[in-house]
């Protein structure tokens, strides 16, 4: 092999071999071990594929599959479009211009994420319903109520978009805040106008960050169950539940899940292929704050309006509906216990956010330090879990952990100790589950920020004899901080509203706000669910505002 390569290749190959020799034992082995544990639930489900689909597979193909595919694709395209419009425009305006209430809107734009999307769905249905809020409003002014039916797939796409666009906003903004300054200065010096700077320069550069957020949105859209089933839209996920529970065929459900994962994987590969030749890195440390422009007053208010629309649609409107319901039900539902419950949920969410981000960092950096390219690709397998509906992942978690528990019970028995489950039904299993489920949420924003950090910085540090870990803490971490904080916020919010995993795996003594909200909502007591939902929102707001301060202060 050495003979065929030219000088350059020989050099890099020997270098690579040397690095491989140095690294393969440590970072690669560690990465592979961690990936193995994180991917274990997905693998456990995947193994089931070999037993073939259930007998109703052909029935599903004949009557339902077309519906699932067309609805899911419709949702993917519609949501991608809306999410990009809302997410990217708001991130750009926030980072680039000064306008009234900018600081408040900056964090308000994250908050739509704090309302579980099925609750947003219920809230909007409640607004447009007969006897709903709009109807009442119209009657106040003696107007005829024109009822708009939003419970269809377009309505669903709208609901999911306004509640999920912050994923794109957060990761695009992290890019704009961190990386944009030098480029903006250069473009300004060259006399290029604002629109052109954005479309020709910033947008292509921000693409990996935007796509990272968008992929999260698509995965969430695909695995949504609550809103889709309420709005009567049959998607892959409703199909998974139908074949698993109504048709009693877990294997068929697993086949559908595999198809779902294949779609996601194809999308990721397509994106990788699209940007294969372009690498976006910057060797500057960019500690300077982006310099914001001050447009004239009318312009400022126009920008305010544009940026305020997604906040209004995704947060203020559904929040108002929830507050109205909360007033109606306060006397029966409100309980001082909710405050304790909030603390508990907060503790669980922040701990799992930190654990998940920790593992995401480990995966990203260990695989970076490992010379094996294979390891890098394998580490991506770890994040696939996010596309699969939580209830299916829960099964994937239980298969290996119960096997472990049974083995532990057997082993302990031989020592004369009788014990129940040690991993299952404890916080360990729950944290493990959250890490598996939300790894992608942490991985994507962090990875997209690391892509922009030129490896020459860390390389020079290593040439000077500084170890990997020290280089990371002293040099890399400050550069990717924005991505890490964004990841913590996102995982935190996701855990706060997580449902199926929590329901199935949580210990008896633990209760979360999301579980409380679901207990009501699952049985058509939507109004009663508003109070625990409001507690979720307010508990989630605290770290959002706080971490956001850290993010922009530096």
């Amino acid at each position, binding site marked *: 092999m050495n003979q065929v390569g030219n000088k350059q290749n020989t050099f890099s190959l020997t270098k690579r071999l040397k690095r491989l020799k140095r690294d393969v034992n440590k970072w690669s082995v560690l990465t592979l071990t961690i990936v193995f544990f994180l991917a274990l639930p997905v693998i456990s489900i995947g193994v089931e594929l070999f037993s073939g689909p259930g007998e*109703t597979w052909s029935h599903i193909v004949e009557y339902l599959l077309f519906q699932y595919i067309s609805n899911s694709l419709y949702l993917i395209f519609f949501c991608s479009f809306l999410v990009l419009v809302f997410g990217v425009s708001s991130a750009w305006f926030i980072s680039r211009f000064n306008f009234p209430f900018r600081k408040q809107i900056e964090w308000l734009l994250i908050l739509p994420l704090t309302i579980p999307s099925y609750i947003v769905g219920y809230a909007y249905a409640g607004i447009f319903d007969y006897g709903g809020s709009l109807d009442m409003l119209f009657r106040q002014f003696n107007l005829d109520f024109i009822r708009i039916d939003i419970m269809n797939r377009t309505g669903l796409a709208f609901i999911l978009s306004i509640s999920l666009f912050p994923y794109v906003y957060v990761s695009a903004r992290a890019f704009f805040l961190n990386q944009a300054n030098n480029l903006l200065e250069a473009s300004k010096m060259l006399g290029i106008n604002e629109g052109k700077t954005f479309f020709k320069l910033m947008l292509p550069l921000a693409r990996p960050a935007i796509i990272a957020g968008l992929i999260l949105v698509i995965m969430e859209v695909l695995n949504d169950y609550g809103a889709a089933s*309420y709005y*009567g839209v049959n998607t892959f996920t409703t199909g998974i539940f139908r074949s698993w529970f109504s048709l009693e065929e877990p294997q068929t459900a697993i086949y559908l899940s595999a198809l779902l994962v294949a779609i996601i994987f194809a999308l990721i590969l397509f994106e990788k292929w699209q940007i294969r030749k372009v690498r976006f890195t910057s060797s500057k440390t960019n500690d300077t704050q982006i310099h914001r422009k001050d447009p004239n007053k009318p312009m400022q208010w126009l920008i305010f309006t544009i940026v305020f629309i997604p906040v209004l649609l995704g947060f203020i409107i559904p929040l108002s509906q929830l507050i109205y319901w909360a007033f109606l039900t306060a006397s029966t539902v409100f309980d001082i216990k909710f405050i304790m419950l909030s603390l508990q949920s907060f503790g669980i969410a922040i701990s799992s956010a930190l654990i998940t981000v920790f593992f995401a960092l480990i995966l990203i950096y260990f695989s970076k330090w490992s010379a094996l390219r294979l390891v890098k690709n394998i580490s991506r397998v770890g994040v696939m879990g996010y596309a699969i509906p939580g209830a299916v992942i829960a099964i994937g978690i*239980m298969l290996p952990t*119960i096997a472990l528990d049974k083995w532990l019970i057997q082993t302990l028995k031989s020592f004369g100790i009788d014990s129940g*489950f040690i991993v*299952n039904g404890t916080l360990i299993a729950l944290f493990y589950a959250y890490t598996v489920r939300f790894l992608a949420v942490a991985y994507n924003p962090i990875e997209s920020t690391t892509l922009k950090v030129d490896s020459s910085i860390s390389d020079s540090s290593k040439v000077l004899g500084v170890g990997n870990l020290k280089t990371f803490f002293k040099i890399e971490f400050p550069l990717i901080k924005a991505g890490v904080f964004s990841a913590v916020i996102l995982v935190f919010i996701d855990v706060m509203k997580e449902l199926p995993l929590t329901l199935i795996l949580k210990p008896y003594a633990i209760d979360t706000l999301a579980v409380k909200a679901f207990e009501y909502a*699952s049985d058509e007591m939507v*109004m009663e669910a508003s109070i625990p939902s409001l507690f979720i929102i307010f508990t989630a707001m605290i770290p959002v505002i706080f971490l956001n301060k850290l993010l922009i202060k530096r």
Partner: protein
Amino acid sequence: MKKIILGIISLALVTACGNDNDQSITTSDSDKEKEEVVNVYTHRHYESDQDIFKLFEETTGIKVKVTNASADELIQKMKMEGEQSPADVLITVDAGRLHRAKEQGLLQSITSEVLEKNIPDYLQDEDNFWFGITKRARIVAYSKDRVQPNELTTYENLATEKWRNRILVRSSSNIYNQSLLASIIANDGEEEAKKWTRGIVENMARSPKGSDRDQVKAVVAGEGDIAIVNSYYVGRMLNSPDPEEVSVAQQIGIFFPNQNDRGTHINVSGAGVAKYASNKENAIRFIEFLISEEAQIIFTNANYEYPVLEGVEPAQTLKDWGEFKEDKLELTELGENNKKAVLIFDESGWK
């Protein structure tokens, strides 16, 4: 900034560990004193149940530990946990799921005179694997302006041309619709059931969506004339904290189909003792308590379900609708025909 981050982390750990401690204290307590417990896996997420569990704890001193999730998820969980499953009691909101749990070997037969005597035969498993604890009926809610009650007769009649574009009903993923079709398969045969389903699909005023409550609202909004809904949702609407919902529910009439032949389709919430229950005696006492007079009164008054215990008066709202004849089909048949029902729904395009 480091301090702030450290602050967050330590706060998080304190709260998380706080939880941990709580838990370890309770578990070690139970080890020391051999605290009496019953582990309940339940699909029912109602306040009424929590009140009843509390009452059970107070009267017997047995602690009720609840795991809440959908029946399907709980069944899956029990299956995987196998012999080590902590579950003592499984509660579902329909007989079909209980039948499925029995078929998969997750329940056991028990002897309890209280249960066998007090619960009517058709509401319990013939081998005593499970027992119904409350009843609900699948009824027709109609617009008082556009429909005369004497136009309504049977479920079968709803599939005739008379009701073209007038029927509102939710998705076929809903278990109550599946049970209804399963009962029609059991009563009329598969071919008739297929015809019926196709007829209903043709008669739908809109594509199925939303909850049972939404179907009732749509009748009042004029989207359709009749809705097929579960009795206790209408009961809940009539007693809703939202005055708008109450006024909606007051504008519709309630009709119990098939009064002149087999009776209106009913389903139960039911409970069974888990196969590997480690607290079997407590589990039986627990289920017996669920059908005691005091528990039945709470069920019907807080949740507008029909009591299974004879002699217990239904809630006033239910009494106002009058008495009705129930379809006394063995509920086991609902479980046996459930899958067939789902397949028929798909074939006929009932979303």
